[in-house]
């Protein structure tokens, strides 16, 4: 299991051929209280960098881009009733969608833990 990051503050936690995508602890802090999450539909095919979801906070609405290419396999429907999960637990209970990777080599272009920590210092 490995976690990679984008410069747009999404994370992807990869297990086998599936990745779990959400926004980072840093991103949720910057956004403030999340009030709404627009989820992608299961089965949606996306290219790396496509708009996958929208997160709306009291301050702003922000697009969430897919860190890799692939197909959405699962979405976190708990966020419909409880969008605050993204604030409380962004890396675990506040995940947004799961994606079946079509081009796993794209992960090499993303940031590792140390590089992302450097970015948000």
């Amino acid at each position, binding site marked *: 299991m490995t976690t990679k990051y984008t410069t747009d503050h999404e994370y992807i936690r990869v297990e086998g051929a599936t990745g779990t995508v959400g926004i980072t602890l840093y991103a949720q802090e910057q956004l403030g*209280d999340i*009030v*709404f999450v627009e989820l992608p539909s299961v089965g949606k095919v996306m290219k790396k960098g496509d708009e996958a979801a929208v997160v*709306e906070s*009291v*301050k*702003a609405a922000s697009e969430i881009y897919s860190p890799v290419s692939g197909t959405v396999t699962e979405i976190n429907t708990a966020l419909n009733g409880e*969008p*605050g999960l993204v604030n409380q637990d962004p890396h675990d209970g506040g995940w947004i969608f799961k994606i079946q990777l079509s081009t796993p080599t794209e992960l090499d272009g993303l940031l590792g833990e140390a590089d992302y920590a450097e970015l948000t210092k």
Partner: protein
Amino acid sequence: MSMNTQGRPTGTGNVTSSPANGAALLPNEPLLFEIGDTEHSGVDLPDVSIKRDRLGGFSRTLPLDLAGLTEPEAMRHYVRLSRLNYSIDSGMYPLGSCTMKHNPRLNEKMARLPGFADIHPLQPVSTVQGALALMDQLAHWLMTLTNTAAVALSPKAGAHGELLGMMAIKAAQTARGEGHRKVVLVPESAHGTNPATAAFLGYSVKAIPARADGTVDVTAVREALSPDVAAIMLTNPNTCGLFEPQVIEIAEAVHDAGAFFYCDGANFNAIMGVVRPGDLGIDAMHINLHKTFSTPHGGGGPGAGPVVLSAALAPFAPVPFVQRTESGLELVEHSEGEALGRITAFQGQMGMYVRALTYMLSHGSDGLAQAAKDAVLNANYVKARLQTVFSVPFPDQPCMHEALFDDSFLNQTGVSTLDFAKALIDKGFHPMTMYFPLVVHGAMLVEPTESESKQTLDQFCDVMLELASDAIAGNMQNFLSAPVNAPRRRMDETRAARSPILKWEREEVVSEAAQ
């Protein structure tokens, strides 16, 4: 007992006397439904003798479910509510990019003249020649002030005007066989409605980053231009309160690439009578009459956002428009050729036209230029007085009609831009625009307009500086608890957005639903 058509007895019912605790001057105002009940009618209507249904079976059978109050009760409710509000008539309203200028009472007097106020849009044109002459004159001066070839008066708001301007651009390109142009360039310092308008018309939006000095770089525009680009939407002066120094080069680059130049005219007050946007190369620009030309901002309406168009776009102007003929003025209501059809029912907001033209004529061309210069002077005065303490993100050039600050002066104080704005309410001022534009962190955007005297500007600056030193001195709690001197305390914005209550429900319905 008299019954009204809803079968309700006339009477007062259980009317709660409203200003609780003797708070006659700062009422804790209940809802209409909480004042009156729905079982009575406050108005004594004669009983209906005709029993025959003349509505073809469509007459209402369910109870009306509106609170039955007498006219004074209803009137008092709304007047009391209005006293909880803050307006340009009760104090300075430094809301950036909104141009909250004074609404002269002369405008109101003119708008109430029966020849303007009491006419109907379907009246024969021969009986409304005065109103048409007023529209014709307003159109003439809007075109003169902007040096453009055509104007559409009818859009009902700035964003509506923006939509029309971009529709005209789309129509012009379709007519040229260039419907493949699908990209609209929008600088980061543009108004938020610009990308929304482009997206609404099916364009994809490409952002142009701002330079370190807050303006748009013509090189960045040139790099972004391609045969797919339909237009650029540029706000000038931009939302950082800065005049775009390369606007003419940008216009030339855009035109050389076969694209159009939409200018967001929301900030026209800074240059009215001084710069003609047509001379800068714009193709379309909306003008918010409620900003630049002093018509009321109203509770969401009525607004008016006329759009001026360049010669290239003039053939696509929508109907209706006023045309001079030998027999008088005519209203052209049917489009011919490539022109867009109607974008509103009827002719637009007549009352706003009267107010805007009154403002123009009472100022004259010298007066309008003076107003713009005073608006710029006032903003620079505020900037100059505050910049000793407040952080100015783009200090190198004078600002136009609005002064932009960021929140770096609040670093380590525990006070955010939001807290600062709430504290300003306690000091008797409407907050400035917050967190916009997005190009700086924790933005505070102050637009004093030309309406304010030096005394009022000084009061405002004194309060701003006092609050800033309070925050820097570490009195965070004063800010977190603000506002305390307002009819309502700090709102829970998160809860309001997460579980909004959008409809009033009778208490028993709410408690039944809970069970």
